[in-house]
């Protein structure tokens, strides 16, 4: 199965504007309502990867979790220009705990 998927970046405008030059689609959002709607819409619209800044992801943890079990799209957290909140790292650790039973790393 080969499909072409688009790439989306979701976050506050200042952080993600640079991505636009690379030809990936950027969606600037500011509050949780907007973020939730945007993520749900783009998830349905043939996007394979959604990069989302941790600041925004922090507002909509339920929405992010919903896509954890799907193969497509992959929702990946990235730090924003205000620095990282370490949510991405803690998600990795959570995965380890879930699989192994305790954090072994």
């Amino acid at each position, binding site marked *: 199965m080969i499909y072409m998927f688009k790439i989306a970046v979701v976050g506050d405008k200042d952080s993600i504007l640079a991505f636009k*030059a690379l030809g990936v689609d950027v969606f600037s959002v500011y509050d949780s309502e907007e973020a939730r709607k945007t993520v749900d819409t783009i998830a349905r619209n043939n996007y394979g990867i959604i990069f989302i800044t941790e600041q925004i992801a922090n507002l909509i943890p339920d929405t992010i979790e919903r896509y954890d079990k799907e193969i*497509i799209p992959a929702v990946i957290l990235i730090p924003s220009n205000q620095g990282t909140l370490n949510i991405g790292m803690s998600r990795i650790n959570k995965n380890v705990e879930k699989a192994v039973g305790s954090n072994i790393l």
Partner: protein
Amino acid sequence: MAKLNVNPTRMEMSNLKKRLVTAKRGHKLLKDKQDELMRRFIELIKKNKSLRMEVERELQESFKDFLIASAVMSPEMLEEAVAYPKESITVDIKKKNIMSVHVPVMNFIRKFDGDEGSIYPYGFAQTSSELDDAISKLYGIMPKLLELAEVEKACQLMANEIEKTRRRVNALEYRTIPDLEETIRYIRMKLDESERSTITRLMKVKDMISKEA
């Protein structure tokens, strides 16, 4: 362990024995699956962790450059510069099967492959060199970012699958198999007991008949 609620008959026992054999084989298979998944998972998660650290650090550097660029240039100019990208990146996703977990394999495709200038969608006259730096750095991170996406997604899916498999293994190991074994033992005892009682009764009857004669 509670025994199952069944009639202590020979037929029931042979059914249970069949079920026990199946349960044991299933347990062994699932255990093997869990072990192999775990091995792969640990390999992947280590890679995931180091990749994420690398990507986060590099992204932050690129953001720093971009921040400087946006300080040097007016916001309108900046937005105008990146408003119409020439380059377009799409991703081609295939599915790979690791121990019955479907994980994505991502390949990213640039529209203007091999054309290094294509990542700057603006003229050089009105933009600062900081913007060039930020964008070229960001472009350099892109392959790693995609690899991160692939690995992290795979880890997520595998973690879910491992959890599910572990539950099944434990249910079989600590519930189903002991229950079946105990029930089989119970039925065998019951059958033996009734056999013994039949024999004693027969002996008693025979005794009574021979005394009467």
